[in-house]
């Protein structure tokens, strides 16, 4: 327990929060200062995380700082930092991409009226995500999990005057909330049965004391949170809509880091989950379904950001497949490389979108997007990495996932994975070919050549850095593997099966070739084979009608069903009964008041009647 380490951790995680508070309270009116504060704090976080990573590169075993939290509430919850290899790796990835995206945003968001607000939310996100990476207990993870959800909501709906943006933010929050509720319940199950929420304890002997059924149940419930956050089937439709946010936000939250938090949590609790093979089977199935569904959706979309969003879902599904197949390193490594090249993809797309003002890549191609040199090269590198073209980083990570899948007894999973590889290559290069080999270019003089001002430089700087990383990262596979192996309780059994490597490579090249045939070659119609089969096209374009089902559910069942019933019950039954009671009282009062207010003789009569009844009573009582 070294104090410098603790100090570094605290600085890395809490500085962005301080920046958030400062911006919200003091510098809302000073955009420049806000940006500097935010970037400065993230830069310090980045430095700290790199230092920590370097310091712990060789250190075996996790470093843990914890303190009792909420002791007086009657719960035994430990909070603190867990700086193990996985956490530090994630911390570094997040800090790095946060920093790059924030620098990039200087150019992208320049002149926006909500500039300060943007940086405040970005800092909030950075705080939550960095803290999530080094959280010590499940409860702590849940807290930051919700906070990244909040920043996601705020950033998706950043341009809140647009109805679709605020709608998308709400949808994202509520859908992930649905998953989080399962996660929350899972935490309860774990707490009540294992008596502890510490990550290390759960991965260690504590979990084995839990009954097997309870363990499976809690694993499935916690996985619900992963499904929500990582936009897996069936809670996947919020992510494409989340592209309503500013592009840097999509790059940071909705591809590289936040949505990867689900996979991160999976990796965090990998030993715990792997105690339940049944749960792992379910995870594998859900990962596969999500990967294939999202790939099909990506094949027909014309919106460049949505293609990358679908591809994010698909790649996250692939990571979950890898993890669920037992390939711990494969999943984490793909998470790492994916963070790099997907952020790069989005940031490049952002440059195009910013420059040409449209999301439609057919449009972009027609407008002459080839003119922007650095983004063009970077996006091709990124797309190639996404498709698994050697020697880029994506190739290595995908290969290791394929090996993990090949290790399973049922070859179906591997075949599904290979199909995914093929589809990925097809749809990513569909975008590339359409964008850079358009059928016709409407050259506009001012547009094509690259602008050369500070904003553009701020945007391209991170692109170059990320592209370099994407190219080089693949060669660090072995060191990262060794680094991660230091923390693992269970063995990384990754059998080397060459034929799966080759098959994957062949299929990705085949996908690329098909894309070239349909979109890239001279004289191609640029109409995909899916679009030639209208029912299939419609099915994919409508996202397998998932949104329709949810819409109907919310509208019919929740709004017009239960909610209507409750409201009617309040109005008619409860209030009706109360009002009837009140009305009855008033009516009764009116009747008794009648005797008092009408003619004097009725009063006399009433007196007499009472007298008679009294006589009656006494007479019969006597008998």
């Amino acid at each position, binding site marked *: 327990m070294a104090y410098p380490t603790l100090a570094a951790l605290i600085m890395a995680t809490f500085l962005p929060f301080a920046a958030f508070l400062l911006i*919200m309270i003091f510098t809302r009116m000073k955009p420049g200062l806000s940006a500097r504060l935010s970037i400065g704090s993230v830069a310090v976080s980045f430095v700290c995380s790199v230092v920590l990573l370097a310091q712990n590169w060789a250190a075996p075993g996790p470093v843990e700082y914890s303190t009792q939290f909420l002791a*007086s*509430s*009657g719960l035994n919850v430990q909070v603190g930092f867990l700086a193990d290899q996985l956490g530090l790796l994630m911390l570094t990835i997040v800090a790095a991409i946060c920093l790059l995206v924030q620098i990039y945003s200087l150019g992208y968001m320049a002149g926006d009226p909500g500039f300060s607000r943007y940086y405040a939310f970005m800092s909030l996100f950075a705080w939550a995500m960095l803290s999530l990476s080094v959280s010590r207990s499940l409860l702590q993870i849940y807290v930051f999990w919700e906070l990244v959800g909040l920043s996601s909501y705020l950033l998706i709906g950043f341009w809140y005057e647009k109805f679709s943006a605020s709608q998308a933010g709400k949808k994202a929050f*509520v859908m992930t909330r649905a998953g989080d509720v399962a996660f929350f319940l899972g935490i309860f199950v774990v707490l009540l049965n294992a008596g502890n929420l510490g990550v290390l304890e759960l991965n260690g002997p504590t979990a084995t004391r839990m009954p097997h059924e309870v363990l499976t149940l809690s694993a499935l419930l916690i996985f619900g949170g992963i499904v929500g956050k990582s936009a897996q089937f069936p809670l996947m439709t919020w992510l494409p809509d989340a592209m309503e946010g500013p592009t840097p936000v999509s790059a940071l939250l909705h591809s590289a880091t936040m949505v990867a938090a689900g996979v991160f949590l999976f990796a965090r609790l990998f030993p715990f989950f792997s105690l339940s093979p049944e749960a792992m089977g379910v995870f594998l199935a859900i990962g596969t379904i999500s990967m294939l569904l999202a790939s099909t959706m990506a094949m027909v979309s014309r919106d460049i950001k949505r293609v990358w969003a679908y591809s994010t879902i698909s790649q996250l599904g692939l990571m979950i497949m890898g993890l669920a197949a037992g390939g711990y390193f494969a999943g984490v490594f793909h998470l790492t490389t994916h963070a790099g090249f997907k952020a790069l993809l989005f940031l490049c797309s952002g440059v195009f979108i910013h420059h040409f003002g449209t999301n439609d890549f057919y449009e972009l191609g027609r407008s002459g997007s080839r003119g922007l040199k650095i983004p063009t090269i970077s996006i091709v590198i990124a797309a190639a990495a996404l498709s698994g073209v050697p020697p880029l980083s994506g190739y290595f990570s995908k290969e290791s996932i394929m090996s993990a899948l090949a290790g399973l007894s049922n070859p179906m999973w591997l075949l599904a994975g290979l199909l995914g590889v093929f589809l990925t290559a097809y749809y990513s290069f569909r975008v590339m070919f359409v964008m850079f080999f358009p059928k016709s270019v409407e050259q506009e003089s001012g547009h094509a050549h690259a602008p050369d001002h500070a904003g553009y430089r701020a945007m391209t700087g991170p692109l170059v850095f990320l592209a370099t990383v994407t190219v080089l990262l693949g060669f660090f596979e072995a060191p990262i593997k060794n680094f991660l192996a230091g923390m693992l309780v269970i063995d990384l059994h990754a059998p080397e099966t060459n034929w799966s490597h080759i098959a994957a490579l062949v299929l990705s090249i085949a996908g690329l070739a098909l894309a070239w045939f349909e979109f890239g070659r001279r004289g191609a119609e640029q109409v995909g084979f899916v679009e030639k089969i209208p029912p299939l096209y419609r099915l994919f374009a409508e996202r397998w009608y998932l949104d329709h089902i949810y819409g109907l559910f919310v509208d019919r069942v929740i709004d017009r069903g239960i909610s209507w019933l409750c409201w009617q019950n309040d109005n008619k039954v409860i209030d009706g009964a109360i009002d009837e009671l009140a009305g009855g009282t008033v009516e009764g009062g009116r009747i008794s008041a009648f005797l008092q207010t009408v003619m004097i003789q009725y009063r006399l009569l009433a007196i007499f009647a009472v007298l008679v009844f009294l006589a009656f009573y006494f007479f019969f009582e006597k008998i």
Partner: protein
Amino acid sequence: MHMEPANFPYLSAILGTTVAGLIAIMLIPAEKKELIRRVSATFSGITLVISLLLFFAYDRSMGGFQFVEDYSWIPSLGIRYINGVDGFSLPNLLLTGIVFFTGVLTMWEMETRVKEFYALYFLLVTGVFGLFMSLDLFFIFVWYDVSLFPMYLLIAVWGTTRKEYGAMKLTLYLLAGSALILPAVIFLYFKSGLGTFGFVPLMQSGMSGTIAPWEQKFAFILLFLGFGILAGVWPFHTWSPVGHAAAPHAVSMVHAGVLMKIGSFGVLRVAIMLCPVGWSYWAPLMAVLAAIGIIYGAFAGLRQTDLKYVIGYSSVSHMGVVGLGLSTMTVEGLNGAVFQMFAHGIMTALLFSSIGYIYDRTHTKMVPELGGLSRVMPVASTFFIVAALASMGLPGLANFWGELVVFIAAFRTYPPLGVIAVLALVVTALFMLRVVQRTFYGPVDEKFSKLQDVSFFLGVPRMILAAVLVIVGLYPSILFDVIHTASAPFINGLPK
């Protein structure tokens, strides 16, 4: 139970300050509105300071009742003027102080009958303070009624939507509650055979079984329903949205923020602590009603178009969480319930305070007529959104911890109800975000585009409330430490 006498009558000082404020306001001519406001702010500020002082001066290691003052009042009936605070009442006292002060500031811009308004407001708060600190059942009952009557006038005179109906409904409901409480109090008085209304001796006789089990069951259900009406227990909740919507902003704040807490506090202090056997007998019923209230309030809130109705139904839902915590019969449950009372009080006060500002500017609180306010008044919107997020149970804001602890306790005691209650989180998120989206997002309406954002001075009360939400949200132990001093000895001392 340990009783630590006070070296200075702090508690009476709070009451004395509100009464002095009341008198001072009465003496000022009605035309001097500015002076009245300042005097009100001063006196309410003093009470806030004293309650803060008490909160931090309370000895957490000793626990029990502290700052106790004990004077004989009507010896022949055994009625004594006893004040004292423990871990249950201290957070509520602080809550009342905060909401009181911020409420005065919230109503700063009101111009109609300022003098009468603040006078009644002070009277109302006197009753609330008295109830939280009194340790004599007779006084608890009296304070309960003292706090009810000004409410009727405040709503009927200064209210907005269907104010007469709302005021009448609220008053009738609450008086029905007090009609249930009084017989139960007298019943306990006679059945204990002690000839005292004192809380501590009665509690001991409840614990030791001097009051027989069936008597406790009978008294408990009366007290639970009586106070429960005020706490918005389903299905006696319909007064709350109507009353909230009708009341002026500060009264809504006190009403939802503090008055509903009187109900749940009464359930805890009088019903549960005096009749523990009755508690264990009726706890499942309490839990079922609370769980229905949680999910029902959330669903009913989905359909509302009036901002205050939305908050009213969210209050029903949140008070269901309090009720669920109280029904679990565990330390965690009580901790969470009291914490949730505090958090909900601050959160609702902030919501109503923000709505108050918006209503004063736009003259409407119907969601469909609003929109795009975030562009026009970003700061005011931020306050509302912070409170809305707290109400969704977002970590980092106070409500999360109360809900978390209550849910865990409920999950342990009544697993199915715990699951239902947690599921309501999704619905709450859905309707709160809908309201936020339709009110603050979207294009700016022409007629609102010239409105001013909240000024620094008017922002002060909202800032205080938001700051409390964040501070307690980041460091929940500040409250849990205090509450625990009361809940743990109580639960451990329960008869087996």
